[in-house]
Structures are given as structure tokens and as C-alpha cells.
């Protein structure tokens, strides 16, 4: 079958997925809004901050009237969701600026962190996992597996703090946090890269165990496949057999794992950004949570969910495009 033939069902799949995702996302947004409406926090007082103690009741009432928070909850929900659909994400009460501009200023750094860390984790785990599977039960295999389970037991923020203690404080090789040097006047890419080595490394290492263990099992499995045995019997060099035959077979199911693991990666990025005081979405999320900033929190949560769902769809389509045995019908 040709490649286009394999993706023939893609449009139908896309339509069906959207038919499911949109109502479910809408239901989720109702749930989130209900939780926000049940919140004991008075948004007007929250917004005014310390000034709320001195502000007159008329001024607070004026604020509430301006935002329409005295309207019935269903009316408020419809207004909020209507604005969301039209692209107006609302006003962040903790940062006193539009949610959209917060996202625009911050999302790039988070995406950079996640993207580089994911790429590193993927390359590293494919390499290490395959090598471990080549001599299953050997010294390298056992050491790697024990290491993977050990790293899996470490919370990412603990790993980050340990990395700061060792590499920034004890050895003094790398900066402990921030995105640029405190003495720097502008943002130079070299400086930023230098500051991102630790956070990216920590996030990659903390996410790698799942990938390493999966690749190792999958490659070890496919090392016994007939076509791999045939390649070995033909006398092909070990490297070619391992990476050209065994790993290639194991690569496909790996794609879906990456898709399902994305939410985990986002949570890890929030924690890593907090540890290293990076100006990404993590820091504003925590600040928004402390200030009960519903519009910003809801926008971040729903936006990441939409991105993850889209990424899952993309991995499924990629899977179908790469493997002729898979047919799209979900």
C-alpha cells in the first residue's frame, strides 16, 4: 500500500476524534468552572490585594459588577466559554494583564525546556536501551536497569536540588538558576544555553527511566524475532543488527509511549522551572495558584490538555503512516 493509501482514514479519524474531544473538553471546562465558582475566594478582594482592607465596599462592588461575578453561575460560564472560543482568554487577576499576553511571553521558554529535554531523553534512551538489550542480563544491562529504577524513585525537584548542590555549589561549574547572568545587560543565546544545561539535563534524566526500560524490553524482545535472527545468521555486524533491525522493529510502539508520557513531562517542567527559577509557565502557574487566579490557571490547564490531545493524535497518525499493519479506526 502506498503511504497516502495508509493515511486514507486519517481525515475520518480526525473528525471522529474531534467529535469526542470537543464535548469531553467542554464537560471538563464545566467541571473546572464549577470548582472555581465553589471557591471561597472573593475575586474582587483577591484582585485588590492589600488594598482590599482599605477599599470601600462600593469600589469592591463596582469591581464585581464590572466582571459580572454576581451574575448566576451558568451565565458566567457561558460568557467565559464564549470568550474562550472567540480567542479572548480573559484577564489574569494575579498578574494584572491579559492571560493571552502572559502565555505569549512565557510559553516559549517552557516549550524550549520540554522540547530539548524530550529530544535528549529520547536519543539517550534509544541508545542506552538498545545497548542494554544487546547483552540481556549482562553487566551493563543490570547496571542500567538498576540505575533506571533508582532515578525513577527520585522526585524531579529533589533531583534538581541535588544537581544544584553538586554542580552549581560544590563544583561551581554551572549557574544555580535563572536564565541569564545577574550582571548581563541583555539576553545572549550563549548565556541562556549555559543556564539551561542543568534544568534541561535534570528534566531529561528524570523522564528517561520510563523510556530506557521500555526500549530495553522492546529491543530485547525483537532480538529474538525471525528477521533479526536471519540478519545475524547472514553474518551482519552486531551494530547493524542491533540498530538497523532490532531497534527498528521496536521503534514504533515507542511512539505511543512518548505520546502518553507527555502530561508527565509537563508536570516535570513546572517543577524544574520552580527549582531553577526559570521564567516559564511553571512560575506563573504557582503564582496564579497562590492568588486563586481562575482565568490564568484554567487557560494553562485547558491549553496543555489540548496540546497533549493533539500530540497523541499526531503520534497515532505517525504510527499508522509508519506501520502498514496498523489501520486507523479509532
Amino acid at each position: 500500500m502506498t503511504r497516502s493509501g495508509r493515511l486514507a482514514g486519517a481525515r475520518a479519524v480526525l473528525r471522529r476524534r474531534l467529535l469526542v474531544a470537543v464535548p469531553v473538553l467542554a464537560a471538563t471546562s464545566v467541571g473546572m468552572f464549577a470548582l472555581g465558582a465553589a471557591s471561597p475566594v472573593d475575586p474582587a478582594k483577591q484582585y485588590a490585594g492589600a488594598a482590599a482592607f482599605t477599599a470601600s465596599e462600593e469600589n469592591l462592588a463596582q469591581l464585581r459588577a464590572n466582571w459580572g461575578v454576581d451574575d448566576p453561575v451558568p451565565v458566567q460560564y457561558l460568557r467565559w466559554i464564549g470568550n474562550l472560543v472567540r480567542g479572548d482568554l480573559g484577564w489574569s487577576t494575579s498578574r494584572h494583564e491579559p492571560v493571552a499576553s502572559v502565555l505569549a511571553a512565557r510559553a516559549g521558554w517552557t516549550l524550549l525546556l520540554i522540547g530539548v529535554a524530550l529530544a535528549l531523553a529520547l536519543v539517550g534512551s534509544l541508545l542506552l536501551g538498545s545497548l542494554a538489550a544487546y547483552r540481556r542480563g549482562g553487566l551493563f544491562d543490570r547496571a542500567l536497569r538498576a540505575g533506571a529504577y533508582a532515578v525513577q524513585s527520585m522526585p524531579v525537584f529533589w533531583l534538581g536540588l541535588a544537581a544544584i548542590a553538586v554542580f552549581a555549589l560544590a563544583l561551581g561549574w554551572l549557574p544555580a538558576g535563572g536564565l541569564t547572568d545577574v550582571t548581563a545587560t541583555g539576553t545572549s543565546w550563549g548565556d541562556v544555553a549555559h543556564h539551561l544545561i542543568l534544568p534541561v539535563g535534570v528534566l531529561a534524566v528524570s523522564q528517561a527511566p520510563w523510556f530506557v526500560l521500555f526500549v530495553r524490553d522492546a529491543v530485547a524482545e525483537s532480538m529474538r524475532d525471525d528477521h533479526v535472527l536471519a540478519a545475524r545468521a547472514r553474518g551482519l555486524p552486531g551494530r547493524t543488527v542491533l540498530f538497523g533491525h532490532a531497534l527498528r522493529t521496536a521503534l514504533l510502539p515507542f511512539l505511543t509511549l512518548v505520546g502518553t508520557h507527555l502530561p508527565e513531562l509537563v508536570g516535570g517542567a513546572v517543577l524544574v522551572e520552580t527549582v531553577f527559577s526559570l521564567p516559564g509557565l511553571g512560575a506563573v502557574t504557582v503564582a496564579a495558584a497562590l492568588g486563586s487566579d481562575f482565568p490564568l490557571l484554567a487557560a494553562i490547564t485547558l491549553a496543555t490538555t489540548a496540546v497533549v490531545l493533539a500530540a497523541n493524535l499526531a503520534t497515532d497518525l505517525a504510527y499508522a503512516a509508519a506501520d502498514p499493519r496498523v489501520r486507523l479506526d479509532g
Partner: protein
Amino acid sequence: MADLATRPPLLHVARSRLRLRPGQTGVVIAGLVLLTTVAGSLLAPLVWPLDQSAVALDQTRLAPSWTHLAGTDDLGRDVAHRAVYGLRVSLLVGAVAALVATVLGGVVGGIAGTLGGRVDRILMRIVDTIAAMPHLLLGIFIVAMLRPSLGAVIASVGLTHWLSTARIVRSEVLSLRNRPFIDAAISGGAGRLRVLTRHLLPHVLPRLALATTLMIPHAVWHETALSFLGLGLPPHLASLGNMINDGQGSLLTGAWWASLAPGAVIVVVTFAIAVLAARWRDRFDPRVRAELHL
């Protein structure tokens, strides 16, 4: 002294006394570590009482020593002592939260499995969508809306961790539904509720108990992450996440123990659980041979 040289090494003696195969030593060590830490932290108030509000400002940031096994923090409090209580708080909160998550998952999975059809499809789609939400972000959202408190943390864990239980219970109920004893009960005149409570539930309960137990470390992690972000338990309460968060300032001045020691407790306990869970899978799921033998 020739006698000493020919004697088998101590480890081998211990193994043969306990009738262990080489691969099982790690399991025993993990079990002992888990037992001592969990039992020790739960019994701590009886043997090693702690005044949560006591500070000693003349003994701040002391390095680990025999009097302070894990040093002291920026307020002169003994880190090891507080870590024992931190684990206690984290375990208790984790256990309650895991129970909440299991009950929620059990109800949703049970409804999906017994009713089937359209209800099942809709519920499972909702489960899939929530699974695509980063559960830390969702957890932060829940805590933010309920204001950080003990109840908010439990709600945050419960509402984000019920998905796996719902899937387990649903598939369990689906596979039980078509078994002859259910048909027998129905033809004997049992109603839907009676079938559910008297025939299905007893079969699902052991799995639920196991799921709850295995959920506790996840719940502890979630609570710790929230507390680390300053969104979890009240700051004066010694919980592992609060201690790691508190210790960050000390860490930057070189007193690494204030933050890393409480975190190490989580690492050790989680690792011990991972070793035991791998062994458990080996024992009861012969198809998947777990690979973790230490």
C-alpha cells in the same frame, strides 16, 4: 585462623538460613527498609515526641553529626527528627487520599462495567481525556480553587488519581459479568443491586485493596510536589514536601542536608516499594517476568 578462611561468607549463611535464592536478597532488604521506616514513622509519637513549633536559633544549619544525624535547618530544628514526622504526615495523607481516589475510581469503573453500552463509552472517554491532562497542573488548579489546606490536598490527589482504578475495576467487572455464577444468580432472581454487592464486589475487592496500596506512593509524591510548590499542607507542619521547600534557602548557602535529607527519605521508600512491586509481579503474573532483581 584457618577456620575463618574456610567458613562461608556471612551473606551466604544468611541466605541459606532464610532459604533465599540469590535474587531474593534485595527483596528482603527492601521489605525490612520499608517496614522499619513506615512502622518507625507511625510509632514515632510514642518513642520520639516532636514539638512542631520548637526552634533553636543558636544551632542553625549545623552539619550532620552524631547528635543531629541529618544536621539542623535554618531554625535550628533537627532535620532527621522532623523527617520522621514528615514521612508520617505524608503517609497518612497519602493513605487517606489513595482511599478517596480508589473509592471514586471504583464507583466510576463499577458503573461503566455493569451498565455497559453508551454509559460505559462516555465514562471511558472522560477517563481518557482527564488522562491527557497533566495531573500536576490539574492538581494545582484544584488546590488553588479550594485554597491550600489538608482537605484540598486530599481532594487534589483523589480527583487526579482515580483513573487507573476506574479502568481496573471496569475491566474486572466486564470479565466477571459473563461468568456462569452471575447468570446463576440472575436466574435465581437476584436484582441488579444484589448481584453488584453480593457477587461482583467480593471479587473486585482484593484487586481494589492492592490498587489502593500501590496508589499510596503516587499520592505521597503528589502531596510532596504540591507542598514543595508551597501549595500543599500548612507550612509549619513537618511534611516531606514542606521540608524540601523550606530547605531550599539553606541549600543555596551550602547546608544541603536541610533539603536533600527529607527528599532522600522519599527516594528510599519509593525504591523499596518498586523492588517489592517488581517481585510481586514476578510471583503473580508469570507472563510478565519483572526484571528488577537486586
